[in-house]
Every structure is written in C-alpha cells, then in structure tokens.
C-alpha cells in the first residue's frame, strides 16, 4: 500500500498542502478528488519524488518508493515532443527492467496507435493513451494517474475507462486524481477528498452508497458546496 503521512508543501507564498495523510491499497482504485489547483498533482509528484515535500513522509509497501515498482502518468507527455512512439518505447525498454514489450504491443493494438507517429502529431486524447500505455507496460505494482481524462475526446475516454475494468489493472494499486468524477464513478473503490490543503474525507465508495445511499458526486457536492 501507498502511505502518505503528514505531508506539507508551500509554493512561494501559498501553503498549498497544509497537512495531508491518506493511504491507497494495492489492488484497489483510489481516487484523489479536489477542485482545480488544490494540490492534487503536487501530491502525486511528491509521492514520486518529483517535487520535494517540505514535511512528511511517503512509504510504498513500508519502504521508500522503489521507482521500479511505481509508474507515474502525468496529464502531459513525459517525452520530448519530437520523439516517435517507437523511440519512447525504446527508451522505456532501456531503463525499466520490468517493461513488458508484449504488454505494450497489446495496448498499442487496443488503442490503435501507430508506433512511428511523432508525439507532436498526436491529439491530446491519443497522447494520453500513449502515456497510459507506457505507464502500464512498465508492469508496476502501483500506477499514479494525474487527471487521465481531462480535456480528451469522448472515445479516448471510453477506451481508457474500459482499461480500468480490464485484467490489465488487476491487483495493481491505482491512484487517480480528478475533479470530474462522473467518468469513473463505478470504477473507484476508495475516494479521498482534498479541501483547502487537507484531507476532508476518506471513504469506501460502496459503503457510503450502502449506508448513506450517496454517490461520490453527492458527497462532493456536500464537501465543496457546488
């Protein structure tokens, strides 16, 4: 499991993350929810060590993060835009021992991608699919996705959503950040709500439906007073 314990972060004057602690289990899909610009991406980047937290610790399976076991898919490409998909794959194969070319080929096929395309020739939706494919093909224990659906076309969104219910995601720990919950209402096991730099709520989605009969959107409306 991923444990985020007592994490704080300040950008210039704004204290973006006051005090955040939560967990994301392996084999579950956890969704980190929060309005735009409330530090969701910062938390993910912090977990990955891309942005140092001012305070607090992050443990993955009880140990400091092992970048072989955790993949990060930000909401923009992480390769130079003049790279082709083939070059991206070659790079991943060079540096990630756990990268599985067969898995990548299957995703390329499913997403109907053309390996020789250059990243800067692709639509935002296709780019998101390439990023996701590269992340999954790493065959990680944990997958961190930063706003996987924001600003991409409906068909790409559908393909990605389908992915989450497929065997590709089975027994991986998935941590998604989003502020549009509708797309993945039925996919999420656990929701973690971020508000004013703190964790306002952390709940099992099916329990809340069972006990309070509320959907995630309902809880969001309560929390963020839409």
């Amino acid at each position, binding site marked *: 499991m991923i444990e985020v314990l007592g994490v704080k972060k300040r950008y210039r004057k704004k204290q973006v993350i006051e005090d955040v602690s939560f967990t994301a289990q392996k084999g579950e899909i956890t969704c980190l929810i929060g309005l735009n610009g409330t530090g969701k991406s910062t938390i993910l980047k912090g977990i990955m060590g891309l942005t140092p937290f001012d305070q607090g610790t992050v443990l993955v399976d009880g140990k400091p993060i092992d970048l072989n076991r955790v993949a990060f898919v930000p909401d923009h490409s992480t390769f130079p835009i003049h790279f082709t998909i083939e070059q991206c794959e070659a790079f991943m194969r060079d540096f990630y021992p756990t990268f599985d070319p067969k898995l990548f080929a299957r995703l390329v096929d499913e997403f109907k991608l053309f390996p020789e395309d250059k990243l800067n020739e692709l639509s935002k939706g296709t780019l998101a699919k390439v990023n996701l494919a590269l992340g999954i093909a790493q065959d990680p224990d944990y997958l961190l996705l930063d706003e996987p659906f924001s600003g991409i076309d409906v068909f790409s969104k559908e393909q990605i959503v389908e992915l989450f*219910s*497929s065997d590709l995601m*089975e027994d991986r720990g998935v941590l998604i950040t989003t502020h549009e919950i509708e797309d993945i209402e039925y996919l999420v096991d656990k929701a973690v709500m971020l508000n004013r730099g703190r964790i306002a709520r952390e709940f099992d989605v099916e329990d809340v439906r*069972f006990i309070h009969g509320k959907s995630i*959107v309902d809880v969001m409306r309560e929390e963020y007073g839409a």
Partner: protein
Amino acid sequence: MIIQFNTRAPVYIQVVDHFKKKMALGELQAGEEMPSRRELATELKINPNTVQKAFKEMEEQQLITTERNRPSRVTTDEHVLKRIRTELVDEAIAVFVESIQELDVTMDELVDKIKRQYGEGNLNDRSTGS
C-alpha cells in the same frame, strides 16, 4: 448485457439484483454457468473488485456455488430459486405501493386498474405462463 446503474445504491447490490431477476425470469437456468468475473467487469465497465463483492454476496445468499478455480454456477436448489422470485415480486409491489399511497386511491379502484392493466399487459407480450 447492459445495466443502467444508479450511482446512489451500492453497485455490487445492483449486480446481485440483476442476476436475481435473470434467475427469476429463467434467463439463467439452474446449474447454468455464470460469466467470469473478468468478463463481467469489462462488460459492465465497473471495478473488478465490485464484481468480486457481488459474487461473494451471491454465494452468501446461496444463489451461486463456486468450486475451487472453476467458474461459478447458478444454484440447482429449487427453494432458493422460488424464494428469489417471491422476493423480487414482493420488492416490486413494495415499491409500487409506496409510490401509490400518496395518491390516496381506494382499494377497489386500485384492484380494478391493476386487473385491467395487468390483463392487457398479459395479452400483448407476456408469453411465459406462470
């Protein structure tokens, strides 16, 4: 097989109800093989854990039986199947009654309407005898 999920009720329960209806309507015969968890999750586009939970719930209600790593099967126990049917009918009636009460309709009027409605309904599409 598409289920129109409602976001406010636990998804796994909606899955279980869906299967109960199919068993009650005989679309799933006794002893028939259930779809695999993975197929179901992909088809319904829901979280595999939820499908897992639904199956566990159905096992608890003895609706299905699963031997070690072989696909689950619908129960062959007639009592269980009958029970499901009556449960579904009672549930439907409970929902119906709840929504009718506000309109303070007399019993006779109600019975009369149901007969006509139910009668007509029977004629044009219900084929299953009961």
